[in-house]
Each structure stands twice: as C-alpha cells, then as structure tokens.
C-alpha cells in the first residue's frame, strides 16, 4: 500500500482563496429549531436532505449486500474459505451472546445490556485486522472487538450485572477497559500510541520484531466531544500510530448523526491532514481490508488514520432505551437488507465454500456459547462489601484504610442477627 491509497487526494490541492463548501451543504438561514423566518426548511427537512446527500459518498465495499465479491484496488485482501468461514463464525457467535445479553437483562439478571446488533461486520472486520501486538481502546459496545482480543464473553457480564467495573487485564489482553465517558478513551489511545513511538516499535520494518499500532473505537455521537478533537490534534502533531475507528451507527441514543455534523464524518480527517476513509461497516471484508491497511500505515509510521465504518444500530441504544420514540420501523427494515452476517452467508453458499454442516456446526456452537454465557451469569455472586475499598489506590492510604476497617467492623456488628446485613443492604 503506498501513499496514494486513494484516487489522488481530493483535498491536496491548495488554492489561493481557500475552501468553499460544496453546494449541497449551503443552506438558508436556519436555526436550532423551526426558523422564525417563514418558508425556511425545518431542521428535520434539512436532516433528511443531508441524509440523502451524505449517502452519495459511497463507502469502500468488497462484499455487496447480495453477497457478491469485488476486489478493491486500494484495499486488497486475500480471501479464502477459511477466512470467510472464520469471519462468519465470529459474527454469528458474537451476535448470539449479544442476544443472550439482551435476554438476560429482560429477565432481571443484568441491570443493562448494550447491544451490538448490526455492528458485527464493523467490529469483527476491525478486530480481526488487529495483530497480537496492537493495542485497542474500546468504548462500551465493542463486544466483537473483545471477542477478537480473546476476552471470553463472560468477562463482559460483570459490568452489566454490576459486580465489577471491568475484569480483564488491559495490558495482558491488549484490550483496554470499556470506557463510558464518551471520548475519553480516544485521548488515552492517542497517548498510548505516543508511547509506542517513544518505545521505538513503529516504522522499524523488521520482520523479526513486528511494529505496533493502536486503535481507538468510538461512535458517531462521540465525534462532537472535544476529547476526540484533541486526540486527533495530538496524533497529527506527533504522527502517532493510531487508527481512529468511528462506528457511525447513525444514532447517538435518539439523535441522528446529522445533529453532529453537516458533512460525512470521515471528512473530519481533512482538517488534521491525515487520511479519512469511509467503509461499508456492514461489509466485514471491507472493514477488515481497510482497517488492516490503516493499521499497516500506522505501524509503518504513516499514521494516524480515521476510518468511518458506516453501519447501523439495529437494536435500541441499550436495554433501557425505547427507539420507537424517535425512529421509524422503515429505517430498520431498510437496514435489515444490509445485514452483515447474511451477506457472508449468501456468499459462502453461492460460492460453495460452506455446506449445511458448517452452518449447523456454527449454530450449535453459538447455542453452546449462549448457554455457557447464561450459566455463568446466573452463577455470578455479588462481591463482598469490602470490595468498595479495594484498589482505589495502589499504595496504602491512611484515611481510606481506616474508613474501611471502621466500616467492616460496623458491618460485623450485624453478624449477630442472622441475615440482618442482607436485609438492610439488599
């Protein structure tokens, strides 16, 4: 992959007079709400208009919704049956435990679940592009990335059941904790990537010692936060090997992506002088190929890169959300036709690279995983109360150590009365 990984850098041309925006982005006076000026379009009309124009910028696609494969000149990918079957299996398994998470929440076993439904292609594509030595910083919906990093799905349960805030070792798994405050982790990723440069593990091009990169995951809504900007500024200034991977699933809870930007989100990279690529987020092959390219660029020292995976949040924002209040069923139906798993299945069938036995096998494996996931969840016990005081600091802390001792002694007072503690603190 060379520097001309594109058709010739549409924003490379310098002009004397600066940039005027494309006509479709120029509108009349229009406010946050209905314009006080008669006849002006309403915000919703503008949103609709933008949606239309935005989709004109076609994303990178290798596998069509109908399951047809077309290689891409800029993002080559060696595709064989093993790869396809592996990706298919990944997506099916991830979807299966994701659905189980939803069900467990409905049954009162989890406080909340954050579904990834519809984003399996975007996540498995990116996740399988990662090399073992790369580091990933997720948001809170990256169950598919966790899967690719070797985090057992049951490890995700504690956060949503409320038994812990995170349970895996970020350094050992090279998968950082889930981050809930929108945007925070992207700056942390930019810093981590600075560290990779300082460590000299970027741009060595030595087959013995593979180079490293970092990837940061965030949503379309997140792009508005100042932290994301500062992350891009730092990454740009320090040439940091970080792939900014935005899953544009069209919604930030109830807000359509047009609230965040009047132009496609991958354009943001133009402001910082690094590549921005829009990829069909429901095409796992395209996501794999583009992310692999982007990570390679970063490992070679040509980072950062912004990837916008254009996808769709097929379920609610979380199990606490009710999307019927803000979006129509049509929209979901249209996106159903673009399902990331279905197109791989069709392709496998059509090209004869998988038979019914394979699909049955994956389905059985998925059921087993779901059962194990559920069993694990049901068996989880709440942590003891002294967990409140654990690991606040790495070194002793006179005030807190005393607070802990006093409280545990106070609690011990209830031990006389059978189950008094449970009753009071339930």
């Amino acid at each position, binding site marked *: 992959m060379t520097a001309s990984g594109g058709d010739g850098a549409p924003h490379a041309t310098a002009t004397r007079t600066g940039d005027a925006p494309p006509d479709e982005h120029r509108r009349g006076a229009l406010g946050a709400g209905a314009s006080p000026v008669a006849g002006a379009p309403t915000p919703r009309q503008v949103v609709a208009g933008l949606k239309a124009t935005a989709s004109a910028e076609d994303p990178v696609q290798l596998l069509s919704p109908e399951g047809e494969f077309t290689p891409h000149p800029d993002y080559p990918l060696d595709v064989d049956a093993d790869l396809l079957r592996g990706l298919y299996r990944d997506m099916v398994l991830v979807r299966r435990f994701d659905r189980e998470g939803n069900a467990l929440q409905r049954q009162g076993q989890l406080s909340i679940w954050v579904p990834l439904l519809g984003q399996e292609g975007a996540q498995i594509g990116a996740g399988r592009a990662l090399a073992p030595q790369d580091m990933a910083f997720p948001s809170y919906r990256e169950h598919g990335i966790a899967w690719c990093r070797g985090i057992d799905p049951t490890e995700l349960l504690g956060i949503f059941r409320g038994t812990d805030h995170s349970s895996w070792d970020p350094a050992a798994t090279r998968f950082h904790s889930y981050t809930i405050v929108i945007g925070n982790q992207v700056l942390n990723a930019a810093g981590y990537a600075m560290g990779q440069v300082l460590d000299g593990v970027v741009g060595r091009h030595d087959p013995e010692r593979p180079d490293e990169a970092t990837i940061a995951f965030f949503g379309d809504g997140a792009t508005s936060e100042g932290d994301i900007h500062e992350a891009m500024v730092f990454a740009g200034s320090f040439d940091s090997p970080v792939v900014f991977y935005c899953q544009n699933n069209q919604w930030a809870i109830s*807000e359509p992506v047009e609230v965040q930007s009047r132009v496609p989100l991958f354009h943001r990279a133009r402001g910082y002088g690094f590549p921005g690529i829009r990829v069909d987020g429901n095409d796992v092959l395209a996501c794999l190929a583009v992310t692999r390219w982007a990570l390679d660029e970063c490992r070679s020292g040509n980072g950062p890169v912004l990837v916008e995976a254009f996808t769709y949040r097929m379920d609610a924002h979380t199990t606490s959300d009710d999307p019927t209040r803000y979006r129509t069923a049509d929209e979901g139906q249209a996106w159903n036709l673009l399902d990331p798993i279905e197109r791989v299945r069709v392709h496998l069938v059509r090209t004869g690279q998988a038979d019914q036995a394979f699909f049955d096998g994956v389905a059985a494996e998925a059921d087993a995983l779901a059962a194990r996931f559920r069993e694990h969840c049901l068996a989880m016990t709440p942590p003891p109360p002294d967990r*409140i005081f654990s690991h606040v600091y790495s070194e002793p802390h006179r005030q*807190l150590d005393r607070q802990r001792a006093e409280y545990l002694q106070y609690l011990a007072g209830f031990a006389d009365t059978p189950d008094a503690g449970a009753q009071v603190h339930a």
Partner: protein
Amino acid sequence: MTALDDARTAAVLPDDAPSQARPTTLAKALNMGLRAAMEADPKVLLMGEDVGKLGGVFRITDSLQKDFGEHRVIDTPLAESGIVGTAVGLALRGYRPVAEIQFDGFVFPAFDQIVSQVAKVTYRTQGRARMPLVIRIPFGGGIGAVEHHAESPESLFCHVAGLRVVACSSAADAYWMIQEAIACDDPVIFFEPKRRYWEKAPLDARPAARPAGSTFTSVVRRAGSDVTVASYGPSLPVLEAAADAAAAEGRSLEVIDLRALSPLDLDPVVESVRRTGRLVVVSEAPLESSITADIAARVTEEAFYSLSAPVLRVAGFDTPYPPSKVEGYYLPDLDRVLDAVDRAINW
C-alpha cells in the same frame, strides 16, 4: 425580571384554603415546572442530549419539544462543554437556557465552562452581564447503574463561587424550585435525585399555591428534640425512615431538608441544633472536602457551646462509586443513620 418574579409577589392562598394537591411523581413535577416556566417566559430554552423527541433519558422533558417546537427544546451535539458554553452565549443574548446534563458523571467535560465562564461572567463584568442559566443534573446512586451514572458531584460546585447549587427532594419542591431556578438571574446548578424520579408525592400546581418565599431554603420536614438529622435530595426518605424507626425506640429526630447547598441556609439548622445539641449530616457524596464537611465546620462554629457531640457525617465513602451490586453498602441507609444517631447520643 420575569413573569415569575411578579408571580412570587402575587397573593398566595389563605392558609385554610382546601389543598388541590394530587399525587405526582418527581419526574412529572419537573416536567410540569419546566412547562410552566416556558409558558411564562418565551426566552426560556431547553437544551441538551436527547431532550427533544426522546424527552430525555429520564423523560423529564417529555413532549415539550412537540409542544414548544425545536427552537425551544434543542437536541444538541454530544458535547457537554458545547452545551454549557453555547448556553452561556444564549444567556448573553437574553435567553434563559436550561441545559440538561444526562448523568452526574458526564458534567465534567463542561466543568471548565462552568467554573471559568458560567460562575464568573457576572463578577468579571461587574454585573453588566447576567447569567440566568440553569444546569439540570440527575444525581446520586441506588439505581443499579453502570459506572459514572451514580455520582454525587454537588460539593465540587458548592466550592465554586458564583454558582448557586440546589437539590430538590419532593414533587412539590421539584415543581417550584425549578421555576425559581429559571427565574433566578444567577446561574443555578439544579440537582435532581434520580432514584426518586418515580416516587409520588402531593403537588398542588395552581399558581396561587406557590410558596410565599424562596424555595432555596432549609425546611424542617419533621420536628424533633433529641437529634437533628439533615440532608438533601435522595437521602430525605432515608431520614424520614430513620425518624420513624427512632420514634419506635422513643427517640425524637428533627429532620431538615437543606434544599439549598450553596448558599446554605444554616439558620434553621443552627436553631435546631441549639435545641437538640446533636447533628447528623447525611449525603451520598464522599466525605473529603465536601458539603457535609462544610456544614459540620460552620454549625460547629456557630453553635459550639450547644453541641453535646461533634457533628457526625454519614456519607459515601472516599472511593469511586462502586459496582452497583455493592452500592447498598455504599449508600447511607437507615442503619448507618441510626448508628450515627446512637453515636451522637452516646458521645
């Protein structure tokens, strides 16, 4: 001066007028209060994440966008500094913005705008510019939520001069306090006890039922003589339950709802402590450099010779908010309050 200020001075119902209070959730009361404020003053705007079509994740702004339009209930980009920073500009333009922060733990990206602009514009301009801005924050724990959704950051705002900080604890207070906050020419950080959103209490929303004075004052919710217990927002029901339990043991607790955290209205507390000699202050927030410390320090200074025991504090621990399965141990509960009452009596 807004319509609300006039309303404040309007005649109130005679004390013996029949109440028309109806059981109302705290959430609905806030919604009604916002509606009333928007009807009273066209300059009142609501803004925040998901406040429009969705009506907010807690539905506090439910149907207000439908009724007042997208130019008065504004879904903003996902950026809290942006929400507060643009609200400052709208206030400078003559609007009275009410910004919603979706959860307590998400106010920090806006902290700089709040500390450096919201709190200081009036001082900086020597009163030439005012900041009639309300920042609504659902706060506190006890709802089984994931990290950052159960914090109690109120003390941080109390430490910042230039802000007013209040917390409502009942439907009626919610209704009147949000209106007073919006009518106030100073910025108000308005804390809403999220785990009490769906609890019902009587609300008489007729204009004539408006409380005569300010609602940003401490009120005695229950008179008592042995120990004063004071709190705000979500812990009030815990205090009421403690008072019941104590009464069963023959102890009389005086329960005070502080309502205003900055400025504190300490006279009713000091007056109470002069009688009881004992004070327990309750809050879900950690102890260090907190509002409970402030109350303890001030009350001790003002009522030093009246105190039979130090002011005791029952609060969140000095840890991050824990995983929700142990939050029952973290939050001040009936037993911890009673334990403190015991300790105060037996000091």
